[in-house]
């Protein structure tokens, strides 16, 4: 199976939620969504974002929207005005997750527009 970044089959947007952030991952096809539902586990996201997020990861599935929503519990270096990070609001966490390299079946790639 080809190894591609998550950005090949999904979009993402992120923002702050208290002392953490959310990353909404939007699959660009039904095939991509079904694949990601299995492959993009909380454990994998946790590992990929370990240096950014010191807390846990929770996942919500929205099948009708083809969206997986990840909540990173402690990813801003303190919430609100306590964070001194450049990305104090987690605006770039979506792009960070889209860098994740995944082993994606050719059939999923064929069914998903670039």
């Amino acid at each position: 199976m080809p190894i591609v970044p998550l950005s090949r089959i999904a979009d993402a947007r992120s923002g702050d939620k208290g002392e953490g952030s959310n990353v909404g991952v939007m699959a660009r096809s039904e095939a991509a969504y079904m694949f990601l539902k299995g492959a993009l586990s909380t454990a994998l996201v946790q590992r990929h974002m370990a240096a950014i997020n010191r807390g846990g990861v929770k996942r919500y599935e929205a099948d009708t929207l083809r969206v997986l929503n990840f909540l990173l519990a402690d990813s801003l270096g303190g919430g609100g005005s306590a964070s001194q990070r450049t990305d104090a609001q987690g605006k770039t966490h979506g792009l960070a997750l889209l860098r994740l390299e995944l082993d994606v079946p050719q059939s999923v790639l064929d069914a998903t527009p670039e």
Partner: protein
Amino acid sequence: MPRKDKVLVANGQGFWGDSLLGPIRLCREGPLDYLTLDYLAEVTMSILQKQRLRDPSKGFATDFVKMIERTAPDLVAKGIKVVANAGGVNPLACKDATLAVLRKHGFKGIKVAVVEGDDIYGELDALLASGETLANMESGAPLASVRERVSSANVYLGAFPTAEALDAGAQIVITGRGTDPGLVLGPLIHEFGWKRDQYDLLAAGTIAGHIVECGAQCTGGNYTDWRAVPDLAMVGYPIVEASSDGSFVVTKHEGTGGMVTQRSILHQLVYEMGDPRNYIGPDCGADFTSIQMEDVGPNRVRVSGAKGTSPTPTYKVSISYENGWKALGQLTIAGPDALAKAKLCSEIVWRRLAHDGCTFNDEEKTVEFVGANTCHEGIDVPHASEPSEVVLRLGVKGHDKAKLDRFGYELVPLVTSGPPGVTGFAGGRPHASEIIGFWPALLAKSKVSTKVSVFES
């Protein structure tokens, strides 16, 4: 009985600091019934509260008054109504300033309404005495543990008081803290006569409000495939073309930049989202997964099918409190060996401070090498370790202000006593500034009463 078939509600301001062109162009470049404007963030309320303590005529979003001054001729000529949470912690003063600029430009007889009741800062002790704990929703700690340091407390009000103000004939509605989607829901309740128990309709208005609440973020701003977005410079701000059955078309004015597609809308739908099935607002719960989207023309997407649930018996309360101090400064380190030299600079600062008895633990320190993958720390990015230049950002936080000020002395000296290529000490010596903590809590709705007053220019 609905007043009209379709109502056009736009958002021209996604946050305080958003482009002035949003509202100005929305008033000029096409048809519009309502202009909504969002000025408040959690930290904003605390800053405004402090401004009001220093000067009783302050404590609101002054940008709003400037915006009214620039758009008043269009607002009046076209009969566009404005709903804004610009009141901050002093909506009556915001109203006074708004009336003053309207009168200054000869606009007489414009009705300006004020919604009050969100600000519970002055009632905190009475509320605590009555048995409310206002416990932190995340940690569970009672508010009493930080009561002395609280600097603002506001309830997220729902949309019905705004609808009431519009029912009373207001052209401009100024609120304090309310939910962002409520800025859009209020006009729809007013226009279509939606009732408090029509949860699907209230959810539809809430979802419409959520889609447009961050301005251009649903019309191509902050969009993953950014190369595909046409003319971002002249991006059109979003407009909801709402119908009384709860369906709505998301669009933008013809000829404006950006784009409205199912994908651009989905980007905003997931923004700051928690559980997609249960978006909790003061007027209803909304199920984001219940909607259907369909293309109904260029830059026109119809959203329908929204399902809602009954609201909770509590309001969310946004409380801010003083939570220590922070100081931050930056230097630019030119190559060759920019990253290695920046790392040395960082070590030098901490060692010099320690030599003078001033130490910070890792939790209190921020060390960033901007240009060498600081936003995506820990994620493998090719060539990130060989940037041609790096911005070194060093920060500290804590409760000892003097210690933070001491830190501020040791950054700029690196220009002459560090490795070569250190420059860019913009802003000079870092000084300690206050950290405003955020304390989310819940409050029984029965403890809050709202008031709507109408004035005239």
